[in-house]
């Protein structure tokens, strides 16, 4: 049941002011996005059409705390097929960024480790200008597991075999232990300082 007194009439503007969310109101609820989405086979509740409808209605809290936001593959199938050019992939990205900000402010809880992963990834770029796999894993796993020790155990479980395989094939040598750095790191700091997700 929708509790009309809990709706936030400004939510759609909030999304449309976020980069990527501009086309929200073009949606006419045809469901093409949802029918073609490859993730619905694995997560049957996943329904971008519904997320858009709820956003238009102003169901801010329900939308932002919906765990399904975080299983999107960003595969662009919805964006490619949408007859209204809603650019759903970017739109969902905009909603995810609002959700991250709300979670950081302590207003909602996100039931997914994806925000931790994305942030850890961005931190590598900010620090080195390029992806540093080991730095990423060393930030992501402990934060996900809640302690350094548990994080290292989880990382070993996921990556022990893979790491050995890559090492044997000469894809991960001693060089991969250290970050590949961009020389002009000052500019990376500036880019993330000016445009970064605060």
């Amino acid at each position: 049941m929708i509790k009309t007194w809990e709706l936030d009439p400004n939510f759609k503007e909030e999304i449309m002011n976020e980069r990527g969310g501009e086309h929200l109101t073009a949606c006419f609820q045809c469901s093409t996005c949802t029918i073609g989405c490859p993730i619905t086979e694995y997560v049957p509740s996943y329904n971008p059409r519904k997320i858009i409808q709820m956003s238009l209605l102003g169901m801010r809290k329900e939308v932002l705390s919906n765990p399904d936001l975080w299983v999107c593959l960003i595969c662009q199938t919805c964006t490619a097929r949408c007859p209204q050019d809603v650019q759903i992939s970017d739109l969902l990205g905009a909603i995810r960024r609002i959700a991250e900000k709300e979670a950081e402010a302590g207003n909602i809880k996100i039931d997914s480790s994806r925000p931790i992963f994305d942030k850890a990834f961005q931190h590598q770029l900010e620090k080195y200008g390029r992806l540093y796999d080991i730095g990423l894993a060393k930030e992501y796993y402990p934060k996900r597991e809640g302690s350094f020790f548990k994080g290292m155990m989880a990382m070993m479980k996921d990556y022990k075999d893979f790491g050995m395989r890559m090492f044997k094939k000469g894809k991960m040598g001693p060089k991969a232990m250290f970050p590949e750095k961009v020389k002009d790191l000052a500019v990376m700091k500036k880019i993330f300082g000016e445009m970064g997700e605060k």
Partner: protein
Amino acid sequence: MSVTKLAYYPGCPSDATAIDQDMSTKAVFEKLGVELVEVEDWNCCGAAEVEDPELVYALNARNLAIAEKEGLDIVTPCSICYYNLERSNIALKADDKLRAKVKGIDSSLDYNGKINAKHVLDVFVNDIGLEELSSKISKKLNLKVAPYYGCYLGRPPETAFDDPDDPDLMDKLIELMGGEIVPFSQMKSLCCGGPLMMTRSDIAFEMARKILDTAKSAGADCIALACPLCGMMLDGKQADIEKALHVEIDMPVVYITQLLGLALGIDAKELGLDKNAVDTKELLGKVV
């Protein structure tokens, strides 16, 4: 042939998990007489993890500006890098205000919209062309191949250079090299699950397994692909998928640049074919 020199954007996995893709890309272009000039001090494109479009534009304005100074179009073997470079290129070309804003961050982001961003597959088939390639191919691939395109070659429409539902540039290239395409159209442009590998590996593994299984039941000798994240999922993680889902797959997965390199008569080692996680030796015997 109009292409003689290109700015090369290798992308982050190029010196580690996708070193084979990097090696084969360089070897193939050399053989084709196209000089690759690596983008000096390039930075990451933002991959799939940077979702804010303007942050992506700023990151890529720097890469595009460096290539523009050389007066060269930029080419990358990675589908995600291609998507980010090209969508930034389109946005920056179309929007003076955005360009000014990005330039305001640092003078090194001063991009004037004078170059094109390309994926290697697009360069091979549409710029160099099948006719030119055919004249340089010296070996026949007696292989049954499952061509896997993944996400960013055929969509989103803004940056796509192939069909969204039935892409065929790789098919054409493989057939030109004497390879046989196995029935694979339903899998061609389905996502490999890569973006969920670190947060929902249960889903990612199932998605990758479906693609690998389909290639196997179609009788493919190998899967050919054009993206290092797909390569990581389908090749690098294949043994993990087998273990986690209690299945046996054993499906070689190669980059399209590796196949093209073989057809051009380049040595397998130079193409990094000893570095693919699933052994590729059996394929080599079928290249004559």
